[in-house]
């Protein structure tokens, strides 16, 4: 927590902030419907904020890197770049794991104008998780439960209902100012309360020593294990190539580009989320395939998510511990399951 944190004496101030944000931007929040589904949905800011909402199954990545995006459009005489025109929007209630994932993608897509156009319009309001969520293991991969930058605003709810607000950027600070919140300085007692909440949250996670063991094993600098280790061979048939993990993974960034044309002179070049678990992902037109078996592809995917070799590109390992892949994997080889197998079997 930085020096510019302030204390909001009660939760109502958070609703004042939301209403203020909603005046100039579209406000999106994780909302829970009567069936218990949690989804990102636009809200007015006048309804009460849902603290401790379960993590939404869809990630926030589609706000910046949508599942389908038109890159170019052409007619008879010209080709035009179709950079998105995006209204300012606020993602209010982003969990630490998703903030960490956005940080990865910010870094990866630095030079992607489509991503930047969307990202530049977004204000991220993080809400620190006070307890582990079902299936989440952000603590063990250094992505939570309390958030790090690049949030614009981060909120921590204390057990007595008070809220500590931290501005993480100039835009965040300006948004707080504009809301004219009644704030108080953060005293030592409050700092202690935040620290306590943080350690309580961290302590709420199940102990999973296999995670560290698996990460150690997947560090190419230690083992240099090539494709085709017997454990990967066993995991291969479990992959249905359904594309669920890559669709829900908040750090997955692979895409394909497809021309959509109807034979007339008009058409669009569109990029779609792609999945490296698909056999067709790397198959070359000659038929040559650098990763011909499902085991090769499963190993490569988890290497990409869990190996420190990707820290230079992403700023951290690719997995943020959100657990979405474990939810959606048909073959029960999501991140936790894989690390359990690799970490325990050693």
């Amino acid at each position: 927590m930085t020096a510019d944190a302030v204390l909001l004496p009660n939760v109502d101030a958070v609703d004042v902030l939301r209403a203020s944000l909603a005046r100039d931007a579209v406000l999106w929040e994780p909302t829970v419907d009567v069936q218990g589904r949690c989804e990102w949905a636009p809200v007015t800011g006048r309804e009460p904020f849902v603290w401790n909402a379960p993590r939404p199954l869809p990630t926030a990545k589609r706000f910046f890197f949508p599942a389908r995006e038109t890159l170019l459009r052409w007619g008879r005489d010209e080709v035009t770049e179709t950079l998105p025109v995006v209204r300012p929007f606020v993602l209010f209630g982003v969990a630490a794991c998703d903030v960490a994932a956005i940080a990865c993608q910010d870094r990866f897509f630095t030079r992607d104008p489509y991503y930047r156009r969307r990202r530049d319009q977004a204000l991220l309001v993080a809400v620190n998780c006070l307890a582990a969520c079902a299936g989440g293991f952000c603590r063990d991969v250094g992505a939570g439960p309390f958030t790090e930058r690049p949030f614009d605003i981060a909120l921590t709810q204390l057990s007595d209902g008070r809220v500590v607000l931290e501005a993480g950027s100039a835009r965040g600070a300006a948004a707080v100012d504009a809301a004219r919140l009644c704030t108080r300085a953060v005293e030592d007692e409050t700092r202690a309360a935040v620290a306590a909440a943080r350690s309580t949250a961290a302590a709420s996670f199940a102990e999973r020593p296999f995670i560290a063991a698996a990460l150690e094993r997947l560090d190419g600098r230690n083992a240099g294990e090539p494709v085709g280790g017997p454990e990967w061979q066993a995991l291969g048939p479990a992959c249905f190539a359904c594309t669920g993990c890559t669709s829900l993974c908040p750090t997955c960034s692979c895409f394909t580009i497809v021309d959509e044309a109807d034979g007339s002179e008009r058409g669009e070049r569109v990029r779609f989320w792609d999945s490296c678990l698909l056999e067709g992902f790397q198959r070359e037109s000659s038929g040559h395939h650098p990763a011909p078996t499902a085991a090769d592809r499963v190993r490569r995917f988890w290497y990409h998510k869990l190996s420190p070799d990707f820290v230079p590109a992403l700023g951290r390992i690719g997995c943020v511990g959100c657990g979405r892949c474990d939810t959606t994997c048909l073959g029960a080889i999501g991140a936790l399951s894989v690390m359990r197998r690799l970490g325990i079997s050693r």
Partner: protein
Amino acid sequence: MSAHPSPDPRPYSYLPFPARLTTVIDESPDTRTFVLGLEPPVAALDGAQPGQFVMLSLLGIGEAPFTMSALPGAGGTPGTVVLTVRRMGVLTTALFALTPGARVGVRGPFGRGFPDADPVPTLYVAGGCGLAPLRAAIVCELAQPRAAPLAIVYGARDPVTRIFKTDLARWRHTPGVRMFERVDHADETWDGRVGSVVDDIAEAVAAIGATRAVVCGPPAMSALAAAELLRAGLDAGAVYVALERYMKCGTGQCGHCYVNQRYVCTDGPVFTLSELCVLPETWTANSGFAALRNPPAGPCHR
């Protein structure tokens, strides 16, 4: 090798530079050279290096990467991109159906090409269409005022699938150039050697005292050639191999071409063997470089 993100702050663009197909040259029954005139010329492309590639764009069909067989700048015609293409898939089939005057698009240049044309004795090893990228490098090197001796080892499936037949004939008589050629299957027109290019490597290395080699060809051939070059005494850091991968963007984003944490499109397509030997995904039988797992010679440190 550059790590992501590149320090270059300029945003990527998917907008291709407009170009027009000016000439089509038949090289072999399934391979043609396409000369593309950029309208207008593009400075970035004029500065392209041998071994770099472009994304060729056919609206309504898509894009695919091709390494230039002649450069717009050094040794070629400014404003002109030359691609030598084997008909394989949907895009190349559509390209083969085009006639001069057709409008196409080009993005690039992309990637890291072959080493600078320093005057060191260099061996070029090519299989099949793999001669296309090397041709640009060879033409560049021959245009240098202080050219060192060079050798070319080329293998084709059979005499009719040899490409750049005019160049091959010319190089055979160019001073300072040693040519070694083989075909897998000879016919009555062929009076040269038969067999694998790998069998000529030791002789070619010795003939010019090669201290550097550049390899491009089908994955299996490249791997065998690389192993043979190491056996012939070349340093792993002086053997350059062009990798091929399926690609969609050319800018290190789409993910199709990654080899471990490296991207063939931005970190390659040309790698030294000492770079490849720390990338386990190239060690598999299918990626060819199984030999690198225990490199027989040369400083191949991790």
